[in-house]
């Protein structure tokens, strides 16, 4: 059963067709990777799915409903979460507070209740704290809870960002180049974390350049080139696909 389906998504910037009629399904409970050369439209595709950018054409179906374009903050309540290519943690906040922000949609205390700090508001805050700690525990980083998030090592910051995305209890997480800036050991660790995330019942869609990581953890791979999908399938089949080989290496041979 597919959790997320893209139908014929398109987006142009000026004359450039950044995403050109892309469609594919992401099965519930799977890890799917999007790969492709720089400028293939991977991040644009993410932004279209999440609503940070509005498509020129096509649609996105998520958990059985067609998503309204735009309104990215609404996507979180529907069960989607994302991380960024450049880590975007909140400065001057602890790792735990960062992850608690990720659990924002699981609480509902507004300005008035928060000003008055009603008993039910405080109970809700304990609940959010527990949820955040659970997400950190899943990734084995609960020990970092009290640290200032932006002062952590790079790999730890990635993990905190992932925990923040998981704290909303999403059905699907979008990871935008999670291994960017990580060394080899950290990348291996990250692969384990992503698998653990999937085992906890969360579907994963990631954009990634690190082929070892992609081939090691993905159930399926989609290849984009110049905004178009040129291949889709299991990692081993993709590696042997002549068109994919040409897209990555062809120009250099010529």
């Amino acid at each position: 059963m597919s959790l997320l389906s893209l139908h014929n998504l398109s987006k142009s910037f000026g004359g450039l067709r950044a995403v050109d009629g892309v469609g594919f399904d992401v099965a519930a409970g799977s890890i799917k990777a999007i790969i492709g050369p720089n400028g293939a439209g991977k991040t644009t595709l993410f932004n279209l799915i999440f609503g940070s950018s509005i498509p020129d054409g096509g649609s996105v179906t998520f958990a059985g409903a067609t998503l309204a374009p735009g309104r990215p903050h609404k996507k979180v309540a529907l069960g989607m979460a994302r991380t960024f290519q450049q880590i975007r943690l909140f400065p001057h906040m602890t790792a735990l507070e960062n992850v608690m922000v990720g659990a924002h949609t699981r609480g509902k205390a507004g300005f008035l209740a928060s000003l008055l700090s009603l008993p039910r508001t405080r109970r809700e805050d304990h609940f959010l704290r527990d949820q955040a700690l659970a997400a950190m525990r899943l990734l084995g980083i609960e020990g970092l809870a009290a640290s200032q998030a932006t002062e952590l090592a790079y790999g730890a910051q990635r993990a905190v960002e992932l925990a923040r995305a998981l704290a909303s209890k999403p059905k699907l997480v979008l990871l935008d180049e999670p291994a960017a800036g990580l060394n080899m050991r950290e990348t291996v660790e990250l692969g384990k974390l992503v698998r653990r995330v999937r085992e906890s019942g969360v579907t994963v869609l990631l954009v990634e350049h690190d082929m070892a990581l992609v081939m090691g953890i993905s159930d399926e791979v989609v290849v984009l080139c110049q905004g178009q999908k040129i291949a889709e399938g299991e990692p081993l089949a993709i590696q042997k696909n002549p068109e994919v080989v040409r897209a990555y290496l062809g120009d250099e041979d010529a």
Partner: protein
Amino acid sequence: MTGSRFFPLAVLAAAVVLVQAVASLADRNQYLTQLTMAGYYSLPILGLTLLMGYAGQVSIGHAGFFAIGGYVSGFLTTYNLAERANEGWVRAAGGLGLLVAGQDVFGSPSLVVRPWPACIAALLMAALVAYVIGKPVLRLKGHLLAMATLGFGTIVYRWVLGSSLLGAADGISDIPAFPLVPGLVVSGRSAVRVSNYYLAWGLVLFTLLLLGNLVRSRVGRALRAIHGAEDAATASGIDTQDAKLRMFVLSAILAALGGVFLTHYNGGIGPSEASIMKSVRMVAIVAIGGMANLWGALAMGVLLNFLSLRGSFGVYDDAVFGVILLGIMLFAPQGLLRPELLRRLLRLLPRGAKGEPT
């Protein structure tokens, strides 16, 4: 947990009592008047600290909201409706108990709005204006937002200065005292100086309690997240425009509240309260207080406003605040009394002490 939440407030409350006791014993009760006024001036500063320091949205127009509070309440409680007593809406307002009849200074009959409904109308007006202005303006970022709020402040200033209904350059005078509850009246008469000092500081303490709650809450975290990385806040499901707008409205209501109380305390209000320099002053105090530091802003606000009200800065009154702002922007753009800065200083101390003997 609960203990630590109330501890600083208890210390401040004790300090408030101590200052009053010392001032009364030393027969220097006139200081309490300036401390009362400084207390009311702290309300817009506390709201602005949340808006600027926590949510990261600069406003150089908050004196405008302070003035809206003071002017609306001042106007309603002084504008004589006696000649229009037979008009339907005046009768309806009278029937609801919103009006009070009396005599003006010349002995003619007067009919004005009671202070309580006037106060509420002033706060609602400030909230409404903040909503209408904030909705489009808070989409702007950085300098653009600063310029837009500066424009708003200028409009309010020029408007009260030019409106004959609001007394133009003279402002509104003879504004009545505000009987809050039986036995407690907002008034500058020296007979009620001590109770007014406690009223102002009670309001400051209550505001600190509420805003402290907000900072530690889900909403407070959302505001700090917006400041830190707005796109990541959106990706966490926060409706950033909505949160900014609500914070803007809340800070405008606090500014107006300070305006209402100070105006009834002083018995008048003039256009200088709406001037841009007053807004700049608030920004300077928030900055020197450490931006995201309610206690720092309160301390600097009381200190500087107290000195300013006592005339310590002489003709350089406005210049002092300009220099403070300039200095902060040049040397400590993230604010002076920042908790991290203080923490780092504290961390240096024991290390230095330990280092000496070895």
